[in-house]
């Protein structure tokens, strides 16, 4: 198991009441595994099953396998411009 830090923004940060949360996942976790772990935390029920994510500041998909050093961020629907 590893403790994995997830960055949250905008409405997602509001759902969890924090700009980042830690989740416990297996050493061979995918993005989807982390999202599943988040959805059972308090506030996580409103999170989509497949939110947009960035890994190391690049748009990524939920099948991506994570390394302990990866920076994972959950991105609510973008509304810039």
């Amino acid at each position, binding site marked *: 198991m590893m403790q994995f830090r997830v960055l949250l*923004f905008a*409405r997602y940060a509001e759902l969890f009441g924090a700009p980042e949360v830690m989740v416990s996942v297996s050493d061979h976790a995918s993005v989807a595994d982390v999202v599943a772990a988040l959805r059972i935390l308090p506030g996580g029920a409103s999170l989509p099953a497949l939110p947009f994510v*960035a890994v190391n*500041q690049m748009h990524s998909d939920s099948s991506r396998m994570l390394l302990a050093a990866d920076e994972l961020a959950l*991105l*609510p629907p*973008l509304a810039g411009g």
Partner: protein
Amino acid sequence: MSCLHGAPLDLEALHATVRRSDRGAVATFVGQVRDHHAGRVVTSLSYSAYGPMAERICQEILTEAEGRWSVAVALAHRIGSLDVGDDAVAVVVAAAHRSEAFEACRWVIEEVKQRVPIWKRERYADGTESWVDPTAPEGVQPAASQ
């Protein structure tokens, strides 16, 4: 130059970064805070961003645009609190030919909206607030804390 700005956008400074005497065509797009959205009266809003990623993607968009067209592009996006009428985003494209300037300018603003991790929280005249969500049927999602 960074793309995210906490202070009012300086269009003159943006122009200065792209203007050159062999580029006679300058196309600009400026997005300003509107007084209404999804049927509600907007009084102000705030933009937040995933800062380092937003900067990286903005630079990526500029590099891609300058690779696709023979243009120089400047881009700035405001973050923090804005009032109605404030400039939220500005794209300035200079080129030798106007068709390239227009095409690249249009492309850049569309890419910014699609790719840059920036979020917008609107405040309405009735005191409520929402996160703007272009993917939601109503265009917004209620904010948790008012």
